[in-house]
């Protein structure tokens, strides 16, 4: 399935905007994603493995936190995951 990587996290995916990972469940896809791009992990998950509270993940148009099976939700190859971190722009040091 296609995963949309937002600009602030693209430096951890070698600049890629979208990454393709075979389906399964949301959790399994993220497992594979963070194995492929280990630097992403700490930006998405707490050390306990919980999705960080300033990151939202949408499966197609729905927030995974509100899906019945949450991160265990099964995904198809045609589904899309979008990562939406909180942003604050214009910063420039």
């Amino acid at each position: 399935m296609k995963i949309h990587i937002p600009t602030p996290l693209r430096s951890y995916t070698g600049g890629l905007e979208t990454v393709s990972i075979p389906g399964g469940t949301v959790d399994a896809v993220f497992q594979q994603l963070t194995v492929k791009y280990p630097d992403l992990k700490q930006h998405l998950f707490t050390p306990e493995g919980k999705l960080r509270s300033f990151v939202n993940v949408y499966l197609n148009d729905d927030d995974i936190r509100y899906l019945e099976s949450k991160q265990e939700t099964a995904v198809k190859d045609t589904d899309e995951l979008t990562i939406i971190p909180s942003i604050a722009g214009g910063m420039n040091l």
Partner: protein
Amino acid sequence: MPTTIEEIVLPKLSNDEIARYSRHLILPEVGMEGQQKLKAAKVLCVGTGGLGAPLAMYLAAAGVGTIGLVDFDTVDASNLQRQIIHSTATVGKLKVDSAEIMLKGLNPYLNVVKHNTMLTSANALEILKDYDVIADGTDNFQTRYLVNDACVLLNKPNAYGSIFRFEGQASVFGTKEGPCYRCLYPEPPPPGLVPSCAEGGVLGILPGLVGVIQATETIKLILGIGEPLIGRLLLVDALGMSFRTLKLRKNPDCPVCGPSPTVTELIDYDQFCGIEKPTSVGPLEVARDKAVGDHPIVEGIPQITVEELKRKLDAKEDIFVLDVREPHEYLIANLGAPQIPLGEVERRVSELAAQKNREVIVHCRSGARSQKAALMLKQAGFTNVSNLAGGILAWADKIDPSMPKY
């Protein structure tokens, strides 16, 4: 919100105003009554920067009667790439004064209320309470959570927008029926995890795009027309030129707008966002990213001045200078030092193995990134690492005035 305006007697339009707003008046969805609602409306723009600039200008042009402006900053030449409410002639002026000149020039019927202050927990409720709609165009998390919470507590809609490089977000928060910013993001990222400053910067027209969306939402809220972005998040991608809206839900456990709120008054937002209080010496970004001043030792890393570096270079001392900025920054100005961007230091530390026991001086633009890199090197066993205080900007200020500052 529109009901509060309808309760009061709507102000009449003069013949000159009728001529000015003709294209609104012949639009049935606005018409005379809508234009009078706009004239009666009071909108607070938090920030007159990239987002606030086009936002306030379109609101002024549209005939919003009162626009409040909150900003404590002065106009800098580097603002003009996107903050079109300011101009070359107003560089150095207070932003609220500069913005007023542009807005009143655009529409003399407008009433501008200037709040030349930093919005804080102490003054936010007092400032926000007189306005019908709040438009948050701030660039930092502390103010964003502050504005969000204040809007929820005062029951005011918040036309929100934010941007990062080529991406934007917009929504309407703070209404009774819809979610608030905390429903979307319960907590801000800790300072160490915000995208590094190396990835800062913004395409100048992007805040124009997003600020105009905020203005559109504000006008719709005042007129009571269309479907505001309540419960929806608009994602703007300027490079792909794609617009997506995602459903937002009200979080039943939201500490501010949920049924059993735990935040019932404004809190300390600097503490909430894990940053030190902003000081008078620098902008919020400096406080957040902990740019390092002239302290001799910070977090175990000696801070060396540009004068000291110059002396060492002139004396041909055995030092190794490392530049941890991004390649595109090197092209703007450099000290000729080898370069490893901060984000790659950890991975590429082996390339520096030969320097482990040499005196290593790390530099970046202003001294914040290089401090982080110096800490990493120390952690990796480097024995003599120091940070160039003030970075290449200080070098341009004190050693080489011909060097461009960016």
